[in-house]
Structure formats: structure tokens, C-alpha cells
């Protein structure tokens, strides 16, 4: 039982950053932006979260700065890809590397360290204890005591679903992806929807980054996003962007993350257990491709 609860809790915290980033990517997916900058946005968010939290002693400021930092990246993306019409793939790759370079540079410039910055002064994002529920066995141990950001991710999932499928904004957002010419001719510039989707992406990736450095762990390390942005991209592709599907698939990846931690207890090399989420992505991709092939031939 203990193992199972540990596994579920591991799954939830492993899923949260992927879910937040993937939700951000869902907006750009529907708006028809080939956004591969989630990796960089997560990393930037993680760095600024630590920066804000360490200097002000407030995790809230940390979250705020994380969102602003990721938004800055989104703005650069908008400047180049939406306004100057630079290739989106190129912009994304360059921004990811910009994020790696800039965070490493600032890590040295501001904190004068290489590799990792960890300090007791970094205020983590608190966990939420739910008074009555926490006493219920099993369910209580899962529902209560989760990090605040986990609940933010849950809310963000349903909010995104509502926004994308039931509002005027959503109708226009999806129109920008399906047929931008139609949206343009209806009097709404599709470039505006693309820009908005990138901003949404920035906010959510910023939150995901903040969770990485102030919730999942309590430090900043070079390149700590470790491919989660790419996994979230895979998650979006696998479920065609649907936020509820994104949540499910993120849990799956989170599960493999938790499983990796569990396997370490059985003396499997740490390097192999760390591979599990990436192998899981490949397996998910295999089933996705197989299903697509089947649909084609049926």
C-alpha cells in the first residue's frame, strides 16, 4: 500500500510540469503555431522562480517572475515568428538554446556558481493540506498534501478545455489553426490569435518551470528541464491537443517517472531508471503511429 501511494504521488508530481507545459502547447497547437520552445520556456521559468523566491523570500514572487520570464521568451517568439515571419522551427530551436545559454550565464553572473544553485533561502511552493480529507486513509494521503501547483494544473486543465471549446476565444483560436485565411477574412487577424496562443503558452510553461525548481525540487540546475518540454510536445501530438487527453497522457508519463524512482529501490542503475519516461514516450508514439496506420488502411 505504501508503495502504491508513493507511486501515485510520484506520478502526480512527475506529471505536473509536463501537464502545465503541454497545456501551454495545446493553445499553440490549436492556433497552428509549431511551438517547440516549451523546453526553453520551462527552463527560463525554473530559473526565474528561484531568482524571485531567493531574493524576496516569497514563493509567490518566484511564481510571478517565472511567468514573466517565460513570457519574455514568448514575446521574442512572437517578434520573430509572428511579426517578422521567421520560420517557427528555427525560432523554437534558437530560443531553446538561448534559454540554456541565458540561464547558465545568469547562474554564473548572478549567483556566481556553475551547475547547480541550491540554498536554504529559496522558498518552496507550499503543499496544500485539506483538513478533513487528510484523515481518510489512502484517498487522504493522495488528495491532501499535494503541492499547490498540482491544483493549479488541475484547474488549468479544465479552464483550458472550457476556453478552447466553449468560448469565442476558442472558436477563433481553433479557426487560426484550421484555416487562418478564413479567420483573416472574417475580420479577426489570425496573427493576433497566434500571438495570444504563445502568450498562454508562456504563462503555463512559466508555472510548470516554477514547479520544477520550487516544488519538484528546491534548486536550480543547468538544463534542469531535461527534455520535459519535448515530452510535452509528444503528449500534445499523441492526443491532438485535447486538454483532457493531455492530462491523461501526462499522468502516464508521470507514472513512468514514479516507476523509475521505484525501480531504483530494486538496484536497477539510476541511469536506466532515468530513461523510463523517454522510453515510455517512444512506446506511446508507437501505439499512436500504429493506430493512425490502422485508421488509414481500414
Amino acid at each position: 500500500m505504501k508503495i502504491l501511494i508513493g507511486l501515485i504521488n510520484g506520478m502526480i508530481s512527475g506529471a505536473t510540469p509536463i501537464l502545465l507545459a503541454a497545456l501551454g502547447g495545446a493553445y499553440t497547437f490549436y492556433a497552428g503555431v509549431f511551438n517547440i520552445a516549451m523546453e526553453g520556456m520551462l527552463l527560463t521559468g525554473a530559473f526565474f522562480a528561484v531568482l524571485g523566491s531567493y531574493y524576496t523570500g516569497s514563493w509567490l514572487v518566484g511564481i510571478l517572475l517565472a511567468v514573466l520570464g517565460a513570457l519574455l521568451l514568448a514575446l521574442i517568439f512572437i517578434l520573430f515568428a509572428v511579426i517578422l515571419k521567421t520560420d517557427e522551427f528555427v525560432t523554437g530551436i534558437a530560443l531553446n538554446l538561448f534559454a540554456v545559454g541565458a540561464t547558465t550565464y545568469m547562474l554564473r553572473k548572478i549567483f556566481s556558481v556553475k551547475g547547480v544553485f541550491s540554498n536554504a533561502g529559496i522558498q518552496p511552493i507550499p503543499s496544500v493540506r485539506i483538513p478533513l480529507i487528510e484523515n481518510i486513509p489512502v484517498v487522504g494521503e493522495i488528495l491532501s498534501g499535494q503541492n499547490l501547483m498540482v491544483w493549479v494544473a488541475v484547474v488549468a486543465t479544465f479552464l483550458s478545455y472550457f476556453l478552447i471549446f466553449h468560448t469565442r476565444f476558442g472558436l477563433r483560436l481553433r479557426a487560426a489553426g484550421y484555416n487562418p485565411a478564413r479567420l483573416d477574412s472574417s475580420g479577426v487577424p489570425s496573427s493576433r490569435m497566434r500571438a495570444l496562443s504563445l502568450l498562454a503558452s508562456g504563462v503555463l510553461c512559466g508555472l510548470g518551470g516554477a514547479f520544477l525548481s520550487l516544488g519538484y525540487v528546491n534548486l536550480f540546475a543547468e538544463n534542469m528541464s531535461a527534455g520535459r518540454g519535448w515530452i510535452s510536445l509528444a503528449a500534445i501530438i499523441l492526443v491532438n491537443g485535447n486538454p483532457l487527453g493531455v492530462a491523461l497522457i501526462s499522468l502516464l508519463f508521470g507514472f513512468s517517472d514514479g516507476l523509475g524512482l521505484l525501480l531504483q529501490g530494486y538496484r536497477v542503475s539510476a541511469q536506466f531508471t532515468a530513461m523510463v519516461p523517454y522510453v515510455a514516450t517512444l512506446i506511446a508514439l508507437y501505439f499512436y503511429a500504429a493506430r493512425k496506420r490502422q485508421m488509414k488502411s481500414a
Partner: protein
Amino acid sequence: MDSNLIEMRHMVKVYPPSVLALDDVSVEFRRGEIHSIVGENGAGKSTLMKVLYGLTHANSGEIWFKGKPVSFREPGEAIRAGIGMVHQEIVLIPEYTVWENIVLGVEPVNWLGKLDRRRARELVRQKIDEFQFNLDPDARVEEISVAARQKVEILTLLYRNVEVLILDEPTAVLTPQEIPQLFAELTRLRDGGHTILFISHRLEEVLELSDRITVMRKGKKVDTVDAASTNRQELARMMVGREVIFTTRRKPQTPGDPVLQVEHLTLREDHGRVRLDNLNFEVREGEIVGVAGVEGNGQFELVNTLMGIQRPTSGRILVRGRDITHCDILERRRMISFVPQDRGKMGASLTASVWENAIMTHHRLNPNLSGWRGILLNTRYAQQFTRQLIDAFSVVVSSPRATFRTLSGGNQQKVIVGRELMLQSDFVLLDQPTRGLDVGSMEYIHDQILRIRAEGRAVLMISADLEEIFLLSDRILVLYRGQLVGDLPVEQTTPQEVGALMLGGHRTSP
């Protein structure tokens, strides 16, 4: 003067880098008239309308609307002012319903920006009733006919209360039977006070529908005339600048042995939908067989299965008696010349040079293009080969090294047709070989098609243009929902009959 609703004065428009699309054009449109703008492809008629609509911007000139100078930066402003345009290619969102397409951009909402679906649907239904358009607001656009999609486009503008409707070649996608209905709707709109600007190059229609007609040629306005006081010959002369022959140059000729034989060809796709339904036909030496049909009735799949992009579910394809149903594409290309319908998507690489486009397929079949052990490419011979093609098909180009994109549409098509005909295959498959070309290039390509017929090669030509089909074909096949509903010698049929078959009607007894 005050009866003029719109005046465009001295419009000049150059498309970068140096295509002069509008050369000092001045034209007036009156309130409550149907005013047609005619001209060849590239005459500037669409550009003139796009400038009026704010979709593109003139380099100089002024536009007056209701007595005031206007300049629309984007279509949204034009629509708000009361001018709307329906484009040649219908731009709708297939995944959305009819009402979602129509309200997009002016959606009724309630709290928090939540879509008010019920009200939106109701408003759209009211408009449909008001203009008697016979549409289901809840149908998905991907499931409705092309004619219905066009109505959705028009209704989108009426929903926004435009007074001026611009229609860019709306009949190009319709069958002869659907056109009268559109014309009746347009006439009704005019009688209700709307002004209609109608772009076309089909003179019969223009004469039937319009009050006045403006003729354009090579970016200039030739004249504006009353429809009642002109005729087809006169319009054609103004449009082309010389006398035009509307009759065929096809000489009688007896076809020889069959080259292409299609037997029981069937293609079933996702969810069991039948795209090609038991097709049986053959194309013989020295014969041009035209394939008519409303777009999306199996032409695409027919080309794909013939070329090996899609595998048929059952049936056989034979060329010169050899079963090629399961051959790979290269094997087919030894026997089939193929001119696809979309130059940029299937027929060429726009960013490559002319010679790189010219040697495609030849590079595998012509040993002169091979260097050391077939691994290297003989680039010197490639240049020479391209020069031969340029000379033989009178392509206007500075050098074989020029980028393909810099060629005009007509010259691009000449390179593609030349490349394919130089393969010397017995069977030639042409998919919309003259789509989007000017009259000169079109006539040139038609001559080439007739030449290969005279050489005794077999030609299968798919075309959306019934006029072209009747001009060139010996026999006409009609496709409807993947079925062959007609196989008619051209002498024994009429455009009306073929049109009826295209819409799923049955062959009328002659």
C-alpha cells in the same frame, strides 16, 4: 456621377518584384447593378477587386465609396463599410459547422466570452430564411456540396450586412446545372438593392447575368459596356486583343490498339467509404479521353491509383498489356508520362533550378544523365538536356540555372509538359493541364496535346473545364461519386448532357 456607388481612379499595383498587375485603371460601379469584370487569367481583374476589398494595397490611385475617399487596410474594414468578397477558392473551415463558419468574427456571446450557441444558430437560420438559401446551419462544411459552400460564403457576408458583393469566378467550381440557381439568387439580391461585382472569363454567363461589363487586358481597362448592346465575339476581341476561334482543331483519326486498360478498379478508404467504384475503361493509341466530373468525385483517387500513390482495393491497371497494379512508381514512370494538376505541389520544386526540374525521372531512365557507375549525375549533360527542352517547347527563360519560381506560370507548365512528353511514353496522363494559364500558353499546351495524339500516343485528360474537354477529347468519361456514369463519344453528346451526368443524373436519350 452621384449614381456611382464606387469609383476607382488611376489604380496602379505592382506585385513584388516587378509584375505590373494594374496599369492606371479607372472604373465606376453603380448602386444596384450586376457589374461583371472580364479578362483573361492575369488581366488584373482579381487584383482590382482585392485592392478594393483591402486584401492587397495599390501603389497609387484612389477609391471613392458613397462619395467619400476610402482606403481599407484589411478586409475587416471593407466588410464593416459594407463591401464583401467571395474568393475563387472557397475559404471555409471544413471542421466547423455552417453556423460556426458564418458567425466567426462576430460571434454572439454571453458571460465570460462564452459562445451563445443557441442565439448564433437562430440568427443564422433567420438569414437563411430571409434570402431563401436552403442550407442546414448545423451541417459540417466538409459534408456539404461545393455549391452549398459557396452559399455559406455569400451568407457570411450578408450576415455582416454588406451592400456590395464581390464574387471571384464563382461559377468555376459549379456544374452547368447549379449555375442558374446561383444566378437567380444573385438577381434576387440585386433586386433587393445589393450591388454585385462579378469576376469571370466565361463570356456566355457574363452576358446572361450582367447589367454592365468592364473588360480588362494585361492590367489595363479596355472599356465598360452595357451588356444589352454587346455580344460574345466583341467581348472576346476586347479581352484577347484579336479574333478568337472557338472551334476545335482536332482532326479526325481512327484510334489503334488499347494502351491503358482499367479493369474493375475499386478503391475503398477509411470507414469503408468507396472512392472508386468498379471502373472499367480503356484508352487507345491516338485517342484523347477526357474525364469530366465535379471535383471530389474520384478524379484525385483515379490519378493516385494510376500513379501508384494509393493502392487500389481491387481491380487491375494494364499499360500495353502489362499489369502494373502492384508496380512501384519508378516502374510505372517507364511507361507513363504524367502532368499533375498542381505545379507547385506535385509537378515541380519551385525552389530548385530549371534544370533540376527538367531532369526529374529522366535522371533514372536516361543513361546519358548518369556518371561513374550510375552513382554520379552527369551535370554537364543535364544542362544540355535542359537546353533541348527549352528549345523544343519554346520556354522563355534566361538560363537552365534560373530558379523555377522566377518563371511565369505558362513557362513553368511548358517545362513540366516538355519534361513529361520527352519521356516518349505511350501513355500520357494529364490532370488539369491548363489550369490557371493565360490564353496563349493554354493554346500552346492544347497544340502539344493534339500533336501527341497525332503521334499515336494515348492520352487520358482530367479537366474541370467542360469547354476544354469538348475541345480536345475523342471520348468523354463522367465520374460521379467514384462511379463511371458515362462513356460517351464526343460527337454524340452535349455539355448539357455531361453536366447532368456530373450531378448524378442519368443519360438522357438523344
